[in-house]
C-alpha cells in the first residue's frame, strides 16, 4: 500500500550530491513530492528531507541505496506520525480586498493561523505555515473569493518526535569507529 514517507538524509556538503540522490528516485520511477535541503544542527552536515508517496518496501530499498552513497552519512525514513513537520506557504492577493473596510480577508487570515507579511496599495502578501492540506485549504479560499494571484509552498521541514537524537548518536559511533583507523 502506498502512503506518504519522509526520507531524511544527512550528508557531507558536496557538489553534485543532490543529483546523485535524485537519480536513485528517477531510476525507480518514484516521484519526489517535495524536497528541502538545509543546514543541520551540525556544522558542515546538510540535511535533506524528501517526501514521497510509495510502498514501505520500495522506500526501504531506496533508503538503503541512498545510505550507501559515499557522501551520505546516514539515510532514514519516517512516517508522518513520527514527525513534527511544517511547510510554509505564501499567497499574494490584490490589496483592494483588504482595504475595502469589511475585514473579511483579515478575519480569514487570523482564523487560519496565517499572517500578513506585507501590504501596500497594490497587493498584500500572506504567510501561513502548516501541513499541506491546511496551506492548500487557505489557497482554495483565497483564490475563490479574493483573486489570489500567486501561491507558493515550500518543501517540508521536519523534526523527529523521538527523544533519541539519531544523528548525534550516529556521529559519536562514527567518530569512535574512525578513530580506530590510523591516518
Amino acid at each position, binding site marked *: 500500500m502506498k502512503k506518504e514517507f519522509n526520507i531524511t538524509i544527512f550528508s557531507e556538503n558536496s557538489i553534485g550530491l543532490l543529483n546523485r540522490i535524485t537519480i536513485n528516485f528517477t531510476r525507480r520511477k518514484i516521484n519526489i513530492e517535495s524536497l528541502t535541503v538545509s543546514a543541520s544542527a551540525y556544522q558542515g552536515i546538510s540535511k535533506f528531507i524528501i517526501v514521497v508517496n510509495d510502498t514501505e518496501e520500495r522506500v526501504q530499498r531506496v533508503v*538503503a541505496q541512498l545510505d550507501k552513497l559515499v*557522501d*551520505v552519512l546516514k539515510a532514514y525514513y519516517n512516517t508522518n506520525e513520527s514527525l513534527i513537520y511544517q511547510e510554509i506557504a505564501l499567497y499574494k492577493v490584490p490589496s483592494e480586498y483588504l482595504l475595502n473596510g469589511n475585514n473579511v480577508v483579515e478575519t480569514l487570515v487570523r482564523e487560519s493561523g496565517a499572517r500578513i507579511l506585507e501590504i501596500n496599495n497594490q497587493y498584500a502578501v500572506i504567510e501561513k505555515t502548516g501541513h499541506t492540506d491546511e496551506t492548500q485549504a487557505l489557497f482554495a479560499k483565497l483564490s475563490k473569493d479574493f483573486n489570489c494571484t500567486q501561491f507558493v509552498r515550500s518543501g517540508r521541514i521536519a523534526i523527529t518526535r523521538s527523544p533519541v537524537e539519531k544523528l548525534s548518536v550516529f556521529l559519536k559511533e562514527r567518530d569512535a569507529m*574512525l578513530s580506530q*583507523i*590510523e591516518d
Partner: protein
Amino acid sequence: MVKSVTGSQAVILSLLEEGIDTIFGYPGGAIMPIYDALYDYQDKITHILTRHEQGAVHAAEGYAKVSGKAGVCFATSGPGATNLITGIADAMIDSVPLVCITGQVASPMLGTDAFQESDVVGISMPVTKWNYQVTCADEIPEAIAKAFYIAQSGRPGPVLLDIAKDAQFQKIDAFCYKKCRKIRSYIPEYPVEPTQTGNIKSAAAIIDAAQKPMVLLGQGVIQAQAEAELQAFIEKTGIPAAWTLLGLSALPTDHPLNVGMLGMHGNYGPNIKTNEADLLIAIGMRFDDRVTSDVKSYARHARIIHLEIDPSEINKIVKTDVAVLGNVKKTLPLLTAAVHKNSHDAWLAEFRACDKIEFDSVISKDLHPAKDGLTMGEVVRMVSEMTHDDAILVTDVGQQQMVAARYFRFRRSRSCVTSGGLGTMGYGLPAAIGAQLAAPDRTVVVFVGDGGFQMTVQELGTMVQNKLPIKIILLNNNFLGMVRQWQELFFDKRYSFTELQNPNFVMIANGFGMDAHKVSHRDELVEGVRRMLEHDGPYLLDAIVEKEDNVFPMVPAGASVSDILLDNSSIK
C-alpha cells in the same frame, strides 16, 4: 617527497604512489598535458593504447578482475569520455574497481558548450560509485587518493575523476601524497565484532540443523580473497556449493563439493535442488534475476542466510532469515568455527544424480556430438583440456559465453573474466588484453561470437602492437546466436535480423598482422587448437560451429528454477 610539479605530473606521481604500472587509454586535446607528463615515466608505467575508449575501459576491467587491483584508464573529454560509459556501467553492475581519469575543458569554459565539452560527471553519475571534477591542481593528490580508496574498498566499483585542462597545467608548490584510509561519510565494511556475533551464532544453529543445505557462492568470495576460507567452511560442513557466473573459479572445478553453476544456463542439479533445499547460504552473491528466475517460486522451502558486505543487498530480492554483514574473509572463519563438523552425503548424491541426467541429455551431445558440425561445447572443452584446465578464460556475451562457463574448467581463482550483470557484447577482446597484462605468464584464451567479435575487432591491433599472446577462439555460427536461440524457442523461429554476412575473419586477423586459422571439421580441431596454443603471439582460431545449436539446460524467462529444461521438446 616534496617538490613543485604541474597538475599533470601530480597525476602520474599519484598513480605511482598507488603502485600503478599499467594504464589503458586514448589521448586527445583535453588530456594532452597528462599524456605529456606520462612521456617521462615510460620506464615505470606501461600505457596501452587501445583502439577505442570502450576497449580501454574493458581492458581495465579485465586487468582488475585478474589482478585484484583497480584498473586505470585515461580518456579525453567529450567523445573520449562518453565512449567510456558502457564499460563503466559494466564495472558498476559487476563491482569492478576502476579509476577512470578524463580530461575536461579548462575550468573557465565549463558550461559554455566549449569544443569537446560534455558533462561527464553528470553522465557517469548513475554508473559510478563516486566521481569528482577537479578544477585546481592542488586537489589532484587528494582526489586520486580518495578515488583509489573508494574504488577498491568495501564493495568495489568504478570511480571517475574529470580533470579540467587548466588544472593539468597549473603548478603545485609541494607535491605530497597521502593514501586515503578513511572518509567520514563512507564505511566500506562494518566491523564484524561485536555487531555480527549474534548473527553468526544464529546462522550456525540453522546450518547445524539443516538437512538439505546449499551454498551459493558469488564474486564476493573472490574479491575478498576468501577462497581458502570458503573451502574450509564447506569442507567442515560438507555442504554442496554452487557458483554464480561471476563466482566461477573461486573453487577448483573438480572440488568434490562443487556442484556447478546456478542460473538460466547453469547446471541442472543446483537449479532443481534450489527448490528442494531447506537452507541456502549465499556468500558474496546478490540473487541476480538470472540466478533466481521467478522470485515468487524461488527456494520456497529454504531458509536463507546471506553473508554480504553491502547492507543494501540484504532483503533486496529475497527475504533473508539471517544476514551476516561484513567482509566474508572475516565472517566465514567465524562461521566455520561456530558450526559442527558434518556431512551431507546423501544430499550430495542427489546432485550427482542430477549431473548424470544432465550428462545423458545435454552434455554428452555437446561434448561427443554425433552430427558433423562442430559444437561450441567440444571446442571449449578441448581448449580447456589442452591448457591443462589452467588458463584464464575470457568470454564475450551470448551463447559462447554460457557454453564456455559450462564447459571450461578451473584450477585456481581469478581465472574467469566475463561480463555478468550488463552482458556487454564487445567485452571479450579488450578484457582479454587487460587479463593478459595482469597475468603475463598465464595463457589467456578468449571465446567470442561472430557478432561480439565485430563490436571491438579493432582491438586486434592493440594485441599485435603490444605482442600480447592472447588466444582468440571465434565460435562462428554466422548468427547472433543467443538472440536467434530465443527467436527459435519463443518467437516462432522468426529470425528477425540475427543472421550475419561475415567477413573473412582469417584475412581480417592477417590484416592486423595476426596469425589465424580456420577449422570447421572435427578432425582438424586438435591440430588447430595445438597450433594456436603453440604459436608465439596472439592468434585467432576461427572455429566454424553448427549454425543453429541451442544452449541447454535453460530456465525460460519467468519460469521457476526447478522448471529448467534439458531440451526444447517441452517448448511449444
